[in-house]
């Protein structure tokens, strides 16, 4: 699979990676090489073998619904680039957002 420059720029935009001063041609070639390497996975004949995401066929362990202490706000925010009170401060995100 060949990756073109447009795809690289799109993925970089999604990942919020600044490509300013980056050799995009080189990056495009490298990404193509990586994908070509991974594409070898398509070669073995896996017809009739169910897809597995895990090597060990065992059920998911569950835990009881019992609270445990976690981090204090100071510990949690120690590596945050900016904070305001006990909040993490990030550049303003305009759209509503949030998961789900």
């Amino acid at each position, binding site marked *: 699979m060949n990756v073109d420059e447009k795809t690289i720029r799109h993925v970089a*935009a*999604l*990942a*919020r990676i600044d490509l300013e001063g980056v050799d995009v041609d080189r990056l495009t070639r490298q990404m193509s090489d990586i994908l070509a390497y991974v594409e070898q996975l398509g070669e073995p004949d896996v017809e009739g073998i169910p897809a597995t*995401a*895990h090597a*060990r066929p*065992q*059920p*998911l*362990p*569950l*835990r*009881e*619904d*019992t*609270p*445990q202490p*976690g*981090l*204090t*706000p100071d510990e*949690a*925010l120690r590596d945050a680039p*900016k904070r*305001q*009170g*006990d*909040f*993490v*401060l*990030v*550049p*303003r*995100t*305009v*759209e*509503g*957002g*949030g*998961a*789900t």
Partner: protein
Amino acid sequence: MAAREYDIVIGLEVHVQLATRTKAFCACPTDFGAGENSQVCPVCMGMPGMLPVLNRRVVEMAVLLGLATGCAINRESVFARKNYFYPDLPKGYQISQYDKPLCEHGKLPVLIDGAWREFGITRIHIEEDAGKSMHGGGGSLIDFNRTGVPLLEVVSEPDFRSADEATAYLKTMRRLVRSLGISDGNMEEGSLRCDANVSVRPTPDDPFGTRTELKNINSFRFIARALDYEAARQWDMLQHHEVVVQETRLYDAEKGRTYSMRGKEEAHDYRYFPDPDLLPLIVENDLVEQARGALPELPWQRTRRYMDDLGLSAYDAEVLTADEELSDYFERVVDEDVPAKTAANWVSSELLGALKQRELEMASNPIEPERLRSLIKLVAGERSRAKSPRTYSPRCSRRRTIRRRSWRRWAFSRSRTKGRSPPSWTRSSRKARRKSSNTRAEKRRFSVISSAR
């Protein structure tokens, strides 16, 4: 409702925040209103190398909701990563379920205008919530306390043909999750959130039109308005030969309109893949059977019982079962001397009216059901002795108001001040009583109250 010149098609995605003590994949507490970033740990903060461990209670609650809605419970389901970038999602992905959800193919019975309807549920899956962000001039403030709180996403079939149907479904869903005890269903606090897919078409025989997704409609008051606005907007576009774009839109409650939430659709490739940190979830028979045994009487079963066994009207049954506490209270008022119909009248009109007047919630209702029951008996006894008429002249209706106020005052003052007697009739009612003879006044008082609706 006025006839529309087009057909609306709506599907709902309801997010139910589960009332567990800890988060979905870590043991952080989920207490509402805790200080910012005080209920976090390396797992929910997305620190490298941390491993999620699923909360058993989340699975139990999901199975409970699945069984209540008649879903098939998949004995094997898979957690997937939904990848996207947003500051309130520290891992860079949300743990969700994708092609193998826990529950599928259910339905929700909803009473609309006295008739039962069933709306299809496509799937129910487990996922985790994102953090909260607040936007200000200097940037956005992020609180990760909510990050990792368990959610159930309930996806409906595109079965709704009006905003009212969608609203009725959502209200029934809220009653259901509350009666199952899996969520407080509070929309204002975000425990119940709703996204809607909306499209329009000229007639029900046409294929579905292009849909837009309305995000986070977080109040019952706005749902119908948001849906109707969006449908009208789309129809208007089609009338002007414009093309409806498939996109995510937000409803602005103040302006009463929806607007495009551009920027997000670009990232719509969520690159779902099975989460390598989580093995497939295997639900054992024991868990399903325990959940089945724990199912309470479901809201629609209760509504049907009120109609079929107690002989209440669809309206009364709906009012009384709209709230679990109200319904339980009503059942404690009914006994062999107080028939259901009488109790229903007193509870749904007199009691609710009095509470509303005092701006009290059912939870803080000061009148014990036993006291209301004895009052009903007292009134019924007096009424049969007095053999009073059931019809009133307009002149009486003013007194009727006075009398109704009087009993309420009596009941409330009694419940506040123990053992206070005799009934604390107000000056206005004393004055009213003095106007006529005692006998006539008594007659009126009781006949009026017992027929009050």
